[in-house]
């Protein structure tokens, strides 16, 4: 037993150096005066006050939350039927479908997002196709729609894979049992299949929402300069403006918001599960 524990030491060191320490540093930077060193510093909450008193920042925070929620909702609405349909296919087709869904991930996300600029731009393929249907002069690129398209496109596979995994884990005789007890296919879905796939839905939501709320290059590329999200603000503070303390403070605020939201989702799941049982 002792030997096994000793084997864990390198991982513990790695973990604390690479994960814990940077996080503590960010918290530290967020609560000290600008220009302070680790050896000589004085505490201040100025960075936090600045964030919460500036309506521009609050507006961007709200916009980020709203884009992330819309992305998650769209991914769920599009992803669930896809995952359900795949899970009903034969084993061989399923493997092929999963491969097709993960295939785009082999190409760098940045490249794929650049491709969308071309697709969405004025005179690009999408505006041409819309033109055939008599829809002209629609501006998609550099709008919220473009950002949502980019986000859903990039994060949908995470949702599909999670839900698919939970659906295929389900014993197929449960579906037969429901049907045997008189449930129509629709009733079987809502009373048996969907409740049992909720854990997959929850992890799908988590895997889409977290990267969506902190995304910065998708809004930068597809939203243009005028469509800032909170990730872009943080990037700006660190790289362009060089205000590490303020950037750290926004990062900490974001981390707290994410923790809070995920906590709520998990509680809703547990409560839902209990209600379903009661």
């Amino acid at each position, binding site marked *: 037993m002792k030997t096994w524990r000793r084997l864990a030491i390198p991982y513990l060191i790695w973990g604390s150096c690479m994960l814990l320490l940077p996080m503590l540093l960010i918290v530290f930077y967020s609560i000290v005066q600008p220009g302070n060193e680790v050896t000589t510093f004085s505490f201040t909450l100025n960075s936090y006050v600045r964030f919460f008193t500036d309506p521009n920042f609050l507006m961007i925070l709200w916009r980020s939350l709203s884009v992330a929620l819309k992305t998650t909702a769209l991914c769920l609405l599009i992803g669930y039927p896809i995952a359900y349909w795949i899970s009903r296919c034969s084993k061989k087709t399923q493997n092929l479908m999963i491969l097709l869904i993960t295939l785009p991930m082999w190409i760098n996300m940045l490249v794929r997002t650049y491709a969308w600029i071309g697709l969405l731009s004025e005179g690009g393929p999408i505006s041409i196709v819309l033109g055939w249907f008599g829809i002209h002069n629609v501006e998609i690129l550099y709008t919220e729609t473009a950002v949502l398209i980019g986000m859903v496109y990039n994060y949908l596979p995470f949702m599909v894979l999670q839900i698919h995994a939970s659906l295929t884990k389900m014993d197929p005789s449960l579906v037969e049992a429901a049907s*045997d007890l*008189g*449930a129509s296919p629709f009733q079987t879905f809502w009373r048996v299949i969907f409740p049992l796939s909720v854990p997959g839905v929850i992890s799908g939501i988590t895997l889409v929402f977290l990267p969506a709320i902190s995304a910065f290059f998708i809004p930068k590329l597809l939203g243009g300069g005028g469509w800032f999200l909170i990730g872009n603000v943080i990037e700006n503070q660190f790289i362009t403006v060089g205000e590490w303390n303020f950037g750290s403070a926004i990062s900490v605020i974001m981390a707290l918001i994410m923790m809070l939201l995920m906590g709520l989702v998990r509680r809703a799941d547990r409560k839902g599960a209990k209600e379903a049982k009661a």
Partner: protein
Amino acid sequence: MEKPKTLIQFRNIQKSFDDQIILKGIDLDINENEFVTLLGPSGCGKTTLLRILGGFLQQDEGEVYIAGKEISSLPPYKRELNTVFQKYALFPNMNVYENIAFGLRIKKVSNDIIEQKVMRMLRLIGLEGYEKREITQLSGGQQQRVAIARALVNEPNVLLLDEPLGALDLKLRKEMQYELKRIQQEVGITFIFVTHDQEEALTMSDKIVIMKEGEIQQIGSPVEIYNEPVNAYVANFIGESNILPGVMVHDELVRFDEQDFECVDKGYKPGERVDVVIRPEDIDIVGPNEGKLNGTVESVLFKGMLYEMMVETKPGTHVTVNMHITSEDANQNDDGHIHISGNSFYLDVEDMEGIEEKDLIARADAQAWNDETDEQLSIEHVETDLENKIGTYSITFTTVGGLSITKTIQVIDQQIVRDEKRNEGVSAFNFFKSKDEIQESVALDTDLKTWANAQGWRLSNEDEAIPLDVTYEFDPDKIAPGVYPVTFWTKGRVFKVHTTDFVEEGARVGLQFGPADIHVMEKEGYTS
């Protein structure tokens, strides 16, 4: 008594999966309030038939009627029958109460009626007070009961049970057998039960349907099937039996094992080949020459309520060979730490065709080793003047460093012992061994068979091997150089007997049975 009403009719049901025929045209009627068991080994099509009735599979051909209505086009949720699944298939996201209430909720029954009915079901299955339990908190037997209640609460006319007791341990399985029978009698509906367990079938059923390879073999009450099996397959599947090949002499007289026996069976052609079944419990053990057959008790097993005895009434086909025990030195040469050993051996002139070096090494059991390092050395060279005709030849095995040993090969025309009547042939060779090899053997009987190259086979089919027993008189621990007879036997005619009287192994006994204990059946292409 009222004539029972037919509830379910299968007409010429055929089904295949991937070109494999599972059901070959099943015709079966099932009555109201009957406990029917579909019995057969796995792969006989019993579950497929049940799933066709449940609506989970579509037959390729044929019709299924419930109460006179063809139902093949109805999906499962429109069929008025319910299923207890093999692994229960209880909904893990619901507790016991909600699982049982599921069917009623679908039918939009009002809450107070649901509660009444669920509570009545919980009483029926003996799980009152368990309604709030999670499924995962239940034992296998309790889950089983909930699955039954969940099906029965819908008040179906027919309950389908797909090997529902398979996952339970023996004691629980027995309990559930009584429980299921009780529930069936109490609710008074048709149960169709699928199992491969003959005891389950006998205990619970009103009617047993025995299936084999997609065909029905026999339909009847447990007593009918047990006492009057239609063929050897059924006799073997239901209960234990002694099945013997026989010939019908004329009505009420059957001949087997070269004796005529009175029986009660009629209607066979004189001279027709038949199978004869005698149940182990129908045979009484009496004194030697007091019964119809005499035999030697081969083995006695204590089975709790009774002894299971194997009595051999006729010895098997046998062959006796000579085992030559040679002195140690003659079989071994050494050169310092290197040793080589080998034995002289016999070969059948018929086996000479295509014989290879490795066969000769194996037959001579030639080995070389280093006693310092305990290392096995290879036989590098074999030299012999062996020819393809009867005679005596010499053979020399050589190992690393040139150490060699020379032995003789006797090529003979080996006599085979044939018993045409029993369709058996046995053969074995004389062999040479040293005292040490006998004493070092960990499984002497097996080694003797290998050394003598003893073989038994069916005369009609040389590829079908018959296992052999071996007997000898010598004491392996005290064996000295010399010649010893060793005999190899096939099994003779052995009767299994269930009796409460204890008899020593090896005792001579008589076997007694009456004409009614002999069941004559039509021959079926089946050998046990």
